[in-house]
């Protein structure tokens, strides 16, 4: 779909043409899923985010400014849907966790620290990284995902998540601090 055609499809979708919106869904679904998976770290949650993001986008199409880039606009919706989903899951599991750094909570049981042989296995490293990521607050995880996996600048993260620059920056900093603490056993085994 070239730029002119894309603009025409978008214009029709904004006028309530569901076939045009279908074309947008078909065009963007895979990239939306990729971002949602990176944000949530879970296939089922990612699928839920994909659906909710498109439904939210459809509802809000009237607010979309035609001069803006639809992909960027959708990216913002997906990021925020992911944060919302992670927050609601967190609330459901009754995990009381503030944004403040709680080093004690990040420590894994000593018995769970694997030996050098297992440390060499990348699968084990991945497992522990995933565990550490799950321990982040939804906002920290979203900000970290955008910075680390998606290569977004602090200003872009700020715009995407609707945060001030300082809040976006500190969400990334807190995430990195928590991850350093959680993954320290791996680093000490390596060195």
């Amino acid at each position, binding site marked *: 779909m070239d730029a002119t055609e894309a603009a025409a499809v978008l214009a029709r979708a*904004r*006028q*309530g043409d*569901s076939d045009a*919106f*279908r074309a947008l*869904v*078909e*065009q*963007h*679904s*895979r990239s939306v*899923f*990729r971002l949602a*998976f*990176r944000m949530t*770290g879970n*296939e089922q949650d990612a699928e839920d985010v*994909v*659906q909710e993001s*498109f*439904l939210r986008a*459809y*509802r*809000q*199409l*009237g*607010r979309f400014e035609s001069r803006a880039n639809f992909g960027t606009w959708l990216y913002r919706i997906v990021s925020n849907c992911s944060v919302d989903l992670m927050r609601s899951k967190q609330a459901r599991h009754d995990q009381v966790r503030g944004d403040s750094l709680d080093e004690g909570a990040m420590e894994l049981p000593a018995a769970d620290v694997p030996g050098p042989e297992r440390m060499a296995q990348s699968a084990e*490293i*991945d497992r522990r*990284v*995933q565990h550490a*990521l799950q321990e982040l607050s939804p906002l920290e995880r979203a900000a970290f995902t955008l*910075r*680390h*996996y998606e290569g977004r*600048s*602090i200003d872009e993260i700020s715009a995407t998540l609707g945060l001030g620059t300082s809040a976006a*920056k500190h969400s*990334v*900093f807190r995430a*990195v*601090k928590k*991850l*350093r603490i959680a*993954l*320290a056993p*791996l*680093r000490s085994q*390596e060195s």
Partner: protein
Amino acid sequence: MTHHFSEDELTLYYYGEGRRRHDIERHLESCAACAATHREIAGTLAMIAAPEVPERGDQYGLEVWQRIRHKLPEPEPSAWSTLTSLFRPGRLAIAAAAAIVVLAAFTAGRVWPRLPAAGTPQPVTTTAAGSMTAGSDSRQRILLTSVADHLDQSERVLTDIMNAPRGDISAEQRWANDLLDASRLYRQDAVDAGERSVAAILDDLERSLIEIVNSPSKISAADLEQIRRRIDAASLLFKVRVMSDELRKREDAPDRSTPRSSTSTRVTS
């Protein structure tokens, strides 16, 4: 005195951001403590590789569409689209038809006398309220007739859909689309007239008509089956038939009781 850089500054540096990149670079060459912190940050972050995203095939977009299309809410309209939608040819025709119905109801209410039934006490409306009641009854009668006709037509579309072979349903879709706007207007009229059960059935009907209209014209067997299951689950055909019959009976009834039973008529000898 040597100025050390904070973890946060070194984190930004790792990601290629921050305003003092040259200063930090020079400092790391000469400060072992900051260099160690930077190595630790870099080493930790290097462990965190992007997760492998499960593969989604070429048809994934279509799958997503199939999952969401029945859930699409009404979009929040922009001011411009609201304005332009009012002047679409189809809408104009429907609006004109509705205006004619309302005008006819108004005229009928003003002109037609209320016919007494044989053997029943004759209500004579001599007050202003009585005149309004007679007009309201005529309007109600026209509404009942129109809705009964509408339900009959809708029943035929639903029956067609229930029996259609897999393939092209564009004819049924055009028919459903024609009925959809009218259905919305009648539902609103029914709500205004206090006809709650009629409004409820028209609401169910509207959902099915929307689903039919929004389905692909070249429909798959699975999609068609899904529409049929929803129609079945709501017992929609049955409800439409029963309601149509009931409205016909009420049309014919000489002294029907309407949901708005607060009509005030005085019997005079």
